[in-house]
């Protein structure tokens, strides 16, 4: 399938890319890993007249640990994050990077591109919603820092202006007694999940002192089920606590019926994923090494 013909521009720096996007106007789009954009162009759901290729810009792919945060270059590939020793200290990030689609897609797809695409079925936004994450955006007037909850505005819609680009993604490293996990349920590796759940919590003995939960694929944007977090915070992890959390998750989920499942099915599925993610997160908070992988139908 051929995309509509387009003009190709290769940027030498992010600043130059922003200027190009500004000059070319609404008909121009930036090209990062292309694993969402190129399929959309081949189906002609997207037909930009100009593409500004970011892939040749030096210094845009890195992972740095600095001042208690991890800083990701916008074009850092999922596979680089999967293999990073610095990232392995924050297991939920590794769960995400290692579980996105398949090897080939992870070799091309980028963290900045995933956030800027804001696909309701994407993985990164869900996971990063449970950590303190800032998206640094670069436009022709300079850089601005936006918290991830404000960055993701709607399905496929972010706070980025047409001529603005993700410059860096900064994620605060959670504390020692914090543990997290991300689980998605998929029919096969290359497809988007049916539902996904990210949990990051802190433990003092048997009691959960802090908890953030985010749900993926069950709303137009990642959902933070605040009632479920409240049901977990300050509680020991018992059957009763878990039942209350799951009930609140089912109530907060707002899925749409499609070929992946009915509304009711997805509510139950996402609650089951939250339960499993909590179980793994608790063990990790206690310092245990637990490997997880996404669940397949």
């Amino acid at each position, binding site marked *: 399938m051929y995309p509509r013909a387009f003009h190709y521009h290769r940027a030498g720096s992010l600043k130059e890319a922003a200027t190009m996007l500004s000059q070319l106007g609404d008909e121009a789009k930036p090209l990062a890993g*292309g*694993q969402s954009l*190129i399929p959309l162009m081949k189906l002609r759901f997207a037909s930009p007249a100009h*593409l500004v290729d970011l892939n040749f810009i030096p210094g845009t792919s890195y992972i740095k640990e600095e001042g208690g945060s991890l800083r990701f270059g916008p074009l850092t590939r999922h596979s680089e994050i999967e293999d990073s020793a610095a990232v392995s200290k924050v297991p939920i990030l590794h769960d995400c990077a290692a579980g996105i689609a398949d090897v*080939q897609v992870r070799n091309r797809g980028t963290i900045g591109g995933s956030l800027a695409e804001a696909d309701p079925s994407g993985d990164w936004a869900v996971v990063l919603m449970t950590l303190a994450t800032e998206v640094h955006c670069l436009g022709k007037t300079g850089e601005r820092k936006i918290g991830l909850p404000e960055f993701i505005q709607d399905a496929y819609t972010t706070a980025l202006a047409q001529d603005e680009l993700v410059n860096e993604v900064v994620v605060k490293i959670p504390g020692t007694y914090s543990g997290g996990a991300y689980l998605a349920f998929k029919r096969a590796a290359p497809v988007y999940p049916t539902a996904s759940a990210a949990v990051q919590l802190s433990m003092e003995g048997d009691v959960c002192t802090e908890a953030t939960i985010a749900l993926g694929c069950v709303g137009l944007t990642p959902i933070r089920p605040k009632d479920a977090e409240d049901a977990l915070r300050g509680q020991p992890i018992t059957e009763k606590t878990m039942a209350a959390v799951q009930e609140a998750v089912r109530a907060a989920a707002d899925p749409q019926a499609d070929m992946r499942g009915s509304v009711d099915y997805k509510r139950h599925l996402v609650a089951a994923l939250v339960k499993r993610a909590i179980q793994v997160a608790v063990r990790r908070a206690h310092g245990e090494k637990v490997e997880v992988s996404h669940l397949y139908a």
Partner: protein
Amino acid sequence: MPDAIPKVAIQVKVNGKLHSLQVEPRTLLVEMLREQLDLTGTHVGCDTTYCGACTVLLNGAAVKSCTMFAVQADGAEILTVEGLEKDGQLHPVQKAFGDAYGLQCGYCTPGIMLSTLQLLSRNQRPCEKDIRKAIAGNTCRCTGYQNILKAVTLAAESMKGA
């Protein structure tokens, strides 16, 4: 519709041979390989980033060549299935797929062999879980996965110390 889209000059090394080409920006890497270079061993299956039949190695990393524009491969080194054989000798991965009957119709095989090559270049002793993860982006419509797993295991054994 923008008119008079200029072609872009690129240089790309494919299976060790340098090519200077003019490509339309919208030309996908797989089309360039198949139609401009006549390397038809790289297949197009789903054309939607699902099946992995078009998998090639780009600077050593497996990519779906239907989900990348040829202009993006400028300056890169690409390995396709045609580059596996050396001096009339099958590559150990090719030989293992033959010996272990790791193929039925063969349509997915070039892509799976290149995914195997990325795996074995980074992990010389893969366990079954590693192999399954490495080829999760390659669909075999004949569903011959058991023998594919055996073929990858055999390839790993025969390449040990190589």
